[in-house]
């Protein structure tokens, strides 16, 4: 049977095309447009070629921000993933306490980013914040406004506070899907607690763990609001991550060209990492 051909059907795709163009393609092209031009105001633009891209790649400032960004993501992953697994393993499996734990764990996830930032901004203040005040009274020299290390610790702990429950909830779902027979068989085989974790729980959690790592990595790599509210990127540039730096460059200094080149490179990095994750995940899926 021959398929009926009617090229007018293409018109049916038009509304989607228009919507996507309006909401995604055109704004992106605007950025691309800025990234290859220079301006001195008055809406006068000069062709700059790939100069801004070269500048961005060789920029110490961007490299430093990227370094801080990678360090930040690595630290929070190294804390949140094991901690989330640990919490999930210790949550009750069923009953009223299980529901209670689930609801409690979900709470931080419901708080808007800038509210989380504000909470910690106040919490950590040495004059009126509970945490900052207590630490100071205990004789610990803590001040996230002046001390780079303290600022880092605050931002990291805040992220752990905010997002560990996501990892825990995902792992919990993975654990719940393990049939009892596996634990029973492990007891029969006289497996130690560690071996039960290593050979039963961890393999069964592998799928959700990959998703958890992907989500937490992407999210932390793009983090903006929380550290901005707490430290504003300071002291100095100590907590200026990629997004914060980008906004400073684009909105603060109004360097549209370099900022556009920067954001395109940023975008490509995220795209590349997502692609790698996707490939790894689907490959793992095939061997399941």
């Amino acid at each position, binding site marked *: 049977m021959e398929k009926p051909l009617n090229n007018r059907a293409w018109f049916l795709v038009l509304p989607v095309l228009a919507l996507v163009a309006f909401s995604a393609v055109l704004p992106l092209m605007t950025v691309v447009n800025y990234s290859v031009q220079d301006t001195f105001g008055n809406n006068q633009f000069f062709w700059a070629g790939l100069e801004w891209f070269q500048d961005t790649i060789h920029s110490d400032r961007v490299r430093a921000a990227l370094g801080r960004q990678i360090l930040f993501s690595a630290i929070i992953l190294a804390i949140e993933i094991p901690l989330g697994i640990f919490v999930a393993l210790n949550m009750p499996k069923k009953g009223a306490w299980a529901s209670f734990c689930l609801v409690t764990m979900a709470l931080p996830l419901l708080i808007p980013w800038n509210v989380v930032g504000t909470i910690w901004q106040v919490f950590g203040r040495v004059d009126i914040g509970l945490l900052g005040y207590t630490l100071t009274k205990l004789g610990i020299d803590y001040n996230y406004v002046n001390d780079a290390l303290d600022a880092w610790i605050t931002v990291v702990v805040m992220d752990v506070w905010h997002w560990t429950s996501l990892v825990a909830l995902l792992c919990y779902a993975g654990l719940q899907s393990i049939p009892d027979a*596996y634990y*029973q068989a492990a*007891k*029969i085989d*006289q497996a130690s607690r560690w071996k039960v974790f290593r050979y039963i729980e961890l*393999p*069964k959690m592998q799928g959700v763990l990959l998703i958890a790592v992907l989500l937490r990595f992407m999210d932390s790599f793009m983090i903006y609001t929380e550290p901005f509210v707490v430290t504003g990127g300071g002291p100095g540039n100590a907590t200026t991550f990629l997004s914060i730096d980008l906004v400073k460059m684009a909105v603060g200094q109004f360097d549209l060209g370099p900022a556009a080149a920067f954001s395109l490179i940023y975008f490509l990095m995220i795209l590349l990492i997502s692609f790698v994750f996707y490939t790894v995940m689907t490959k793992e899926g095939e061997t399941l």
Partner: protein
Amino acid sequence: MTEITLENLAHSYLPNPSGDADWALKPMTLTWQDGGAYALLGSSGCGKSTLLNIISGLLVPSQGRILFGDRDVTGLPTMERNIAQVFQFPVVYDTMSVRENLAFPLKNRGLAADVIASRVAEVAEMIGMTGVLDRRARGLTADAKQKISLGRGMVRQDVNAILFDEPLTVIDPHMKWELRTQLKDLHRRFGHTMIYVTHDQTEALTFADQVVVMYDGRVVQAGTPQALFDAPEHTFVGYFIGSPGMNLLDARIDGATAHVAGTEIALAHGYGALAGKTQIGIRPEFLRLGAGGAGLPFTVKRIEDVGHHRIVRGQVERADVNVIVPEGQPIPADTDRVIIDPAHAHVYVDDWRADPARQERAA
């Protein structure tokens, strides 16, 4: 290896069991002899798996004691009981190879590498997986995985008992037969106590020397397959064992005479006067067909030819009655009577077999 005794054991899944129905296992006292091959037979939900899990320590019984030899193990965790158990559905460690799976219980006991290697090779041979030892267990078929589970159950030599919980459910029929033969063989060679849970009587009767029949949380009879066939202690045993099962007819028993469907039948023994629901039970093998004359009025419904004999299905009044007619024996077209062989008829009072000798003494 040791003798396993269950002493006044009972279990309920409810915290405060009140009525009889709340108990998944009703109080029982039972001994599993060292080196016996037992089948635990019963329909689904009768408490077979519960009993098995209590023996292996996965469940702690609500009351009673479990003894391994003279040692009370009621409170001991599974780890310290050293028991192997194979479950109904395959459990394999996905990330390990077949070899590592089989070696796992041995490694956990800290055996020497060469001992482990030789045991694994032996078991792999037994379950027919020598060729795939280095494959990852993940991605194998369900029956291959179940064979690994069986192998893990059999790999330890010093276990107190090996428990099988309907292990061949997911295995295809040919392999089923072969694995059962292997299990039997293994039992002969190593003499482990084996308890094999099943709801398939063929499986039970071919595997076991002793069959324990459970019904509604109770052990209703334990004995050799022959004993279960000859003298079922409970109507359930009569009905469950045999193909087709025992025929049961409501009867009024008066001494050595049974009144069934308006007909008097002379019994082999006297029973005195019995109270409660009385029935006579007779296996289809011990019924004969007749036309006119003696016997119970019988209506033939249909005849099934199963090869080496025929099953005549019919009714005596409202009760279904099956008769087995050996090959070569004719079935007359005007069959309207069925004749009971009194030597093989049993009398049941409230589903339990009445003992003629005792009843005579009482009378």
